[in-house]
């Protein structure tokens, strides 16, 4: 490992980190602006031009607010929980390639923090660890609403993780690899997985919403029922961490979706490798655009669909998505067997 590699790695880490944080900031604003748009009203538009500095103002507000720690909490866990939530949210992005390989000084640089040979499993594993943040936060608050929210969220996450995994398996089967690079390369060579596996894409999309605790599956928070869900008792910067990780998760999930089913940074009908550095820049932009679409979809869905009831959520997960995922695997297997 020479200086160049270390340097490149550092740059990539910082760039991705900053990009994710930036995306989160943009998202917090976009959420409210789009909501305003959908509800035929203005969103926040006073801080900076068109309200662009609103996230900064929010951040400053979170930092400066008084940090209230309720008397009943179990302090160590209470402090640990936001961190546990945050770490997976920020580290999952590490394995996602965000652009075509770049040629720098005669070397090829993968636009990806870490290309490990089991990238998909890495994401799944970290997502499953993320559950602890919610559960522990809910439990350690020492109050019933957070506890209920925590229990709900963990059950929800575990249930939908299965459907998600099954949807991914179909993709893995056709592309024959567990790294994103292989999956994207396969989609470049043939066509986007979305066209080949619409069922899997649908299942994954729904599961993705549930995994990030977004409407219509935001039962962990469910303001009207549980006050604020697992983070009811959190305030100030610790609340900000939950907030941040929720949006970071959305970004990662969108990226995941894009990589699995929509060709990642691939631009359809265009060969990026022929265009040199510009091609790389273009591919990164395309990737951002695709992610942006799914983030918009998140918001759109949020302000369009009502929340599910808990039993409906479970029924959907276990009795609809899980069988659909299995059917998809079966169909893919059949298709592969017939093709060969």
């Amino acid at each position: 490992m020479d200086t160049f590699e270390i340097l490149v790695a550092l740059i990539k880490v910082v760039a991705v980190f900053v990009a994710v944080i930036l995306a989160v900031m943009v998202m917090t604003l976009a959420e409210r602006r789009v909501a305003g748009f959908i509800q035929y009203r203005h969103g926040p538009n006073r801080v900076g031009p068109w309200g662009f500095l609103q996230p900064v103002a929010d951040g400053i507000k979170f930092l400066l607010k008084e940090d209230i720690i309720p008397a009943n909490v179990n302090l160590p866990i209470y402090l640990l929980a936001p961190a546990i939530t945050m770490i997976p949210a920020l580290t999952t992005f590490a394995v996602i390639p965000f652009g075509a390989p770049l040629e720098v000084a005669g070397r090829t640089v993968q636009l990806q923090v870490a290309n490990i040979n089991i990238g998909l499993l890495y994401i799944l594993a970290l997502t499953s660890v993320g559950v602890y943040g919610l559960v522990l936060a809910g439990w350690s608050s020492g109050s019933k609403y957070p506890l209920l929210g925590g229990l709900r969220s963990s059950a929800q996450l575990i249930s939908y993780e299965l459907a998600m995994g099954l949807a991914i398996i179909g993709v893995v089967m056709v592309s024959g690899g567990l790294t994103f690079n292989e999956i994207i390369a396969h989609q470049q060579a043939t066509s986007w997985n979305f066209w080949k596996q619409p069922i899997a894409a649908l299942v994954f999309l729904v599961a993705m919403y549930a995994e990030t605790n977004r409407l219509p599956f935001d039962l962990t928070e469910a303001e009207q029922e549980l006050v604020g869900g697992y983070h009811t008792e959190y305030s100030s910067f610790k609340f900000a961490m939950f907030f941040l990780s929720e949006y970071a998760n959305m970004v990662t999930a969108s990226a995941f979706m894009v990589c699995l089913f929509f060709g990642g940074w691939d631009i359809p009908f265009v060969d990026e490798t022929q265009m040199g550095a510009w091609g790389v820049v273009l591919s990164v932009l395309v990737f951002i655009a695709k992610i942006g679409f799914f983030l918009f979809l998140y918001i759109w869905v949020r302000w369009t669909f009502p929340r599910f009831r808990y039993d409906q959520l479970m029924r959907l997960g276990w009795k609809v998505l899980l069988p659909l995922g299995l059917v998809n695997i079966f169909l893919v297997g059949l298709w592969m067997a017939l093709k060969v």
Partner: protein
Amino acid sequence: MTAILFYIFATFLLAASLFVVLNRNPIYSVVALVFAFMNLAAMYFLLEAYFIGILQVLVYAGAIMVLFLFVVMLLNVQPDQPRPGLIHFDRWWYGLMGLIFVGLFLVLIGEGARLLLTSPAGEAVQIGGVDSVGEALFTHFLLPFEIASLLLTVALVGTVFLAKRRV
């Protein structure tokens, strides 16, 4: 570098495990155990068992321990109350045996290691990936694999039966 990381992880692992066993609050134990398993996963990575390492996180840290956490929450287990006396009479001989065991075990490890050290080191072969483990699982170990799936089904049914309220 790898070796240093390994020893760091191993130390964390042992410390966390000791914490699991020694502290009185079950919730702390669970969290410590999750941490321990994460370290163990890291050690697996360093031993080039990538697939198993991920599984360690996915299955142990991600699924099994969540169950523990659930049960601890569900039962609302309170921290153990300290009891009078440092060593309880009915337990001193467990302690004695535990100590003998620890001693013997370490001695044996030393003995075994001496034997192993004399044998040549293994070659570095890429065996830890999903492909090689998967291939072994679906060819040579196909039957045990299927039986394991059956075992899981049985466990599922059994668990539901045991845990549901009396109808």
